[in-house]
Each structure stands twice: as structure tokens, then as C-alpha cells.
């Protein structure tokens, strides 16, 4: 399929047999309406926010260069893909901190799928797609709750999974995996 006529299209990527349409943040609503009404993507499968904070800055996930020993990210020395262990390189940098992915599906033959992607920094908001696909309601609330993505125009952007008075957004990369603040009775 060709998606050149999608409004606000910045880039089209074809990877692993999947199409990703990177769309201008300001024109997301137009693009989504076009995809639903013209291209026939009436089914919104999923909305996935991803936090790319620290992406590639310390090598790849799970590798820690030891202070004295060799750096497992760069077994063949620093800088460049000269390592002897396969993927010894830093991943490609990302445009902004957060990506929000909309996985769309058209209910017709060959089941075409497309991923709409917008990029934003902390503090920016995305236009809500609840008026376009009602199912986005909880997906966007979950994205706000766990990742702190603000959706402009959502009719009920409250926390969904965590408690109403929870502080922070647990799926962010700067949120620790373990431990939570505990209040003691003798604290003021």
C-alpha cells in the first residue's frame, strides 16, 4: 500500500514486513481521520507509548561496562563497530524522548496493518483519538497513567491502573523498578 497522501507524513519505514508512518505531531488527528475514512483502518488495535530516555547512552540494555575490566559494549575498543561479539554498537539515536505508536488494522482481505508513530518530548501533548476510535479511551488513559503522556482533548484523562493519588509514571525509564516511598507515622 502507498501512504503518500496521508496528511502530515514525515517518513515511511518498512521493517520486518511492517509499515511505520511517522507523522507530524500537530497533524495526527488529520492523519488518523484519513487512515480511517479513506484507507479503511477502522480498527485500532493498540496504543503503545515508549520511553527512549537513555537509549544507547550506556551501550545497549543489560550491559554494564565494569570500572576496571573491559567494556562489554565495545569488546574491540571504544567507538565503532569493530567488536568481535556481533552487535557491539550503539543503537541509532531517536528524535525525541517519547514515541507513541498507534497500531491500526483494516478488517479486509490480507489484513493490512500500519503503525502510526508520533514523537514528543516530556511536557508536550498529543491530540486524543477518542473521537476517531472510541476504543482509544482506556489505551490513552493507560498511556497517561504508566508513561505520563498527556492527551489533549481526552474526555476523562484519569489514572486507570495505578491509584488515583499515585506519584510518577511507572513505565518511564527514570522510574525505579523496585522500592516505593513509605510514609512513617512519626513523619510530619
Amino acid at each position: 500500500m502507498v501512504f503518500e497522501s496521508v496528511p502530515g507524513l514525515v517518513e515511511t519505514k518498512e521493517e520486518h514486513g511492517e509499515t511505520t508512518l511517522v507523522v507530524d505531531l500537530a497533524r495526527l488527528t488529520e492523519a488518523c481521520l484519513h487512515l480511517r475514512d479513506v484507507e479503511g483502518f477502522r480498527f485500532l488495535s493498540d496504543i503503545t507509548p515508549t520511553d527512549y530516555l537513555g537509549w544507547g547512552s550506556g551501550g545497549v540494555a543489560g550491559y554494564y561496562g565494569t570500572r576496571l575490566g573491559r567494556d562489554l559494549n565495545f569488546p574491540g575498543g571504544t567507538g565503532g563497530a569493530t567488536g568481535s561479539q556481533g552487535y557491539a554498537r550503539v543503537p541509532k539515536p531517536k528524535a525525541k524522548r517519547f514515541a507513541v505508536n498507534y497500531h491500526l488494522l483494516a478488517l479486509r482481505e490480507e489484513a493490512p496493518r500500519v503503525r502510526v508513530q508520533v514523537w514528543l518530548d516530556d511536557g508536550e501533548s498529543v491530540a486524543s483519538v477518542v473521537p476517531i476510535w472510541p476504543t482509544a479511551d482506556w489505551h490513552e488513559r493507560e498511556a497517561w497513567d504508566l508513561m505520563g503522556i498527556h492527551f489533549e482533548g481526552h474526555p476523562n484523562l484519569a489514572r486507570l491502573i495505578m491509584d488515583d493519588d499515585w506519584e510518577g509514571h511507572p513505565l518511564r525509564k527514570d522510574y525505579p523498578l523496585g522500592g516505593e516511598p513509605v510514609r512513617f507515622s512519626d513523619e510530619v
Partner: protein
Amino acid sequence: MAIVERPRIYEGTHIPSPIPTVLQVPEELRESENLLQVNFGPNHPSTHGVLRLVVDLNGEQVVGLRAVVGYLHTGFEKNMEAKTWWKAITYAPRIDYVAFQNNELVFVLAVEKLLGMETPEKARWMRTLLCELNRLHSHLVWLGTSALELGAISVFWYAFRERDLILDLFELVSGTRMHSRYFQVGGLAEDIPRGFYPECRRFVEWMPKAINDYEALLTRNEIWLERTVGLGVLSAEDAIALGQSGPVLRASGVDWDLRKNQPYLTYDEVDFDIPVYDEGDVYARYRVHMDEMRQSVRIVEQCLERLEGMQDAPWLTDDRKIVLPPREELHTSMESLIHHFKLVTEGFRVPEGDVYVAIESPRGELGCYIVSDGGPRPWRVKFRAPSFVALEATATCMRDALVADLIAIVGSLDTVMGEVDR
């Protein structure tokens, strides 16, 4: 194959506005003295877990409804980011603990897609077989508990009797009754034990009779019909707009099943039908579940025939950078020992990129979106949980329902809270 979109059941949408998932009390009723707010759950025997519904009642009629979830949130996705790829596999089946094998499959398929890896034919057939057994298991749990909630206690005992037979089969194959971690990146964890084939064949011969028994108890049962027909109606348009999938979507007259429309594993090589009902009510969902069980038995039978013909075939890919070497080699081969050590301590690395893989779990479209930065741990894992989306339809289905129907309707959406809250 053409997708038949059947005529809509009624004109106009029933999705509440402006919030699609909250049924708000009508303006004229807000001051009424008859209004009673009831908390249904989170601890209630018929909520299929810990679901809380805040229901506004006007007499017996539901006029307002709000679903509250999150009581079972365990941070699976966050935890998986801290584990290596193959240790993260154990988390996936625990997300939807009833359709465990399908959850395991979708994560493994996603990792294999990112690796660009082919799995042996035997593994693909066995995966299909186990996923269908798991679908039977999930539908039996659904049938037993939903019927129990409406007072049909004997169905529960029969359904759980056969459920136990399926769990015995899982135990025979993997050593565990649930959460088997039998699928792994590259194929299966172990070869299929020879005793599995005759046992599974016995089960395949027995199961259709058992389904006949359930249907004899319920399908034309006067009380069952009274409690299910015409309740919780969801039109095809509303179902699509609300992202419904699986039995809920097919009960609303949309002929859509990823096993047919977007075949994975060996589903394009087996012969089976997709049951579709037009009514969109609780009874239609029941019929879809029952018909699907019969189809699953058919698929299991065909898989079994194919698997019996490839008993000595490999079940795991031979890529030593990804899969563990055979145990016996560790005593004689230095290379195998190194591979084993590296895989267990560091794990394997998955090329940079992101993929979304969707399969038809017993509850509908189960998706898995993974991001890798090229390291041995996932950067991000996200599950598109069909139960999560199904609960969004409660407000639409519950319009003008009576409080006694609430349990039937919530039950028919077939939600598992572990998957909703993740």
C-alpha cells in the same frame, strides 16, 4: 476470502458519549431519590478476578456504570525490561493465566520475528496443537464459571472435568500443568514425549461427546435462554469501534479471525470453520464459544496426525547463538559449554528494531509490541490484551440492562483480570 460485513442490527450507535467507557446517569434522573449507587466488586465471586463496577441503579435498572480496574497490576511489562529475552518468556503466560500458552506464543513469535528466525516444522505444528488445547481450556473455564454465575452448577463440574484432562496433557508434555514455558525462541523446550500421542488421541475422541453434554444441558435450556437471549447487545459497528475482537466480535456478526485472515503457525494448512452469529447478545457469545470448541478439537486432531508422522524430526532450531546446546554435549564439548555459559549468564542479543505481532488468543486479538536496542534485554514490551479492550464495552452492553443481567453480560465478555491490569 471476502470479509462479509453483515447488515447492522439496529440504527445508530449505543456507545455512550462523551466518554465511551462510562455510562452516565441521565440528566433528569440525577436528583431522583430512587437512585442507588452500588459497588460491585472488587471482591465478588462473579467478577472473574478483581473487577470493580460502580453501578447506579434506578430500581432494578442500570442507569450508570463505571468500571474500575488495576487491582491486579503487577508490572509485568516493567519487570520484563529488566530480564534477558529468554528469562522474560516466563512472564508472558502469567499475564493471562487462563490462556497461558497463547501468551507465551505471542512473545516468542515477536522475538523470533525480530531475530528473523525460522522454526522447525514440528515445532510449528506442536505450537498449533498446544494453542488449540489451550483455547479449549480457556473456553471450558469460561463456560464453567459463566454458567455457574447464572446458577447452572452442574456445567461447572463437567467443564472442569475436561479442563483437568487438558491440564494432564500439558503436564505430560512439559511437566507443569499451567505456565509451561514449553515454547521458547527457536522452537520447543523439549521433544514431545511418545506417550503424548495416544493420550491426546484419547482426549480428541472423548471431547466432542463432552461438548454434546454441555450443549444438552444449556443450549435449549429454558432458564439459560431466559438469562442470555437479547441481553448485552453489541452491534457490529459498535464492536469494531470499541476494538472488540475474538468471540465478542464474531458474536456481533463480523467474520474475523486472525487464524484465517492473517494465518500464523500452521493455521493455513488445517481445515476449520469460523463460527459467526449475528445477534450480538450473550447467547450468541455462548454459541460462538461452543462452536469454537468443536473447531479446536478438529484442529488438534489434524495436528496430531501430522505430528505422528514426524516423530524423529528436530523440534528446535540449531542456532547455537540463540538456543541452549543439548545437555549431554556439555560434558564432552568445550564449545557447547561456552555457549551454555554465555546464554545463561548474558542471554542472546536481539537486533535493534521494533515489531508488533498479533495472534488470535481465546479472547481475541492478542498483540505483542517489542522494542530492542540490540542488547540482551527488551527495551520495551507491551501486550495488547483483548480482555482489557473487552471491558471497555461494558458500558455499551449494559445500557438499559437490569442488575441481575449485569453478571451475565460481564461474564459473556470473557475477561481475565490478570491480562487487563498486567
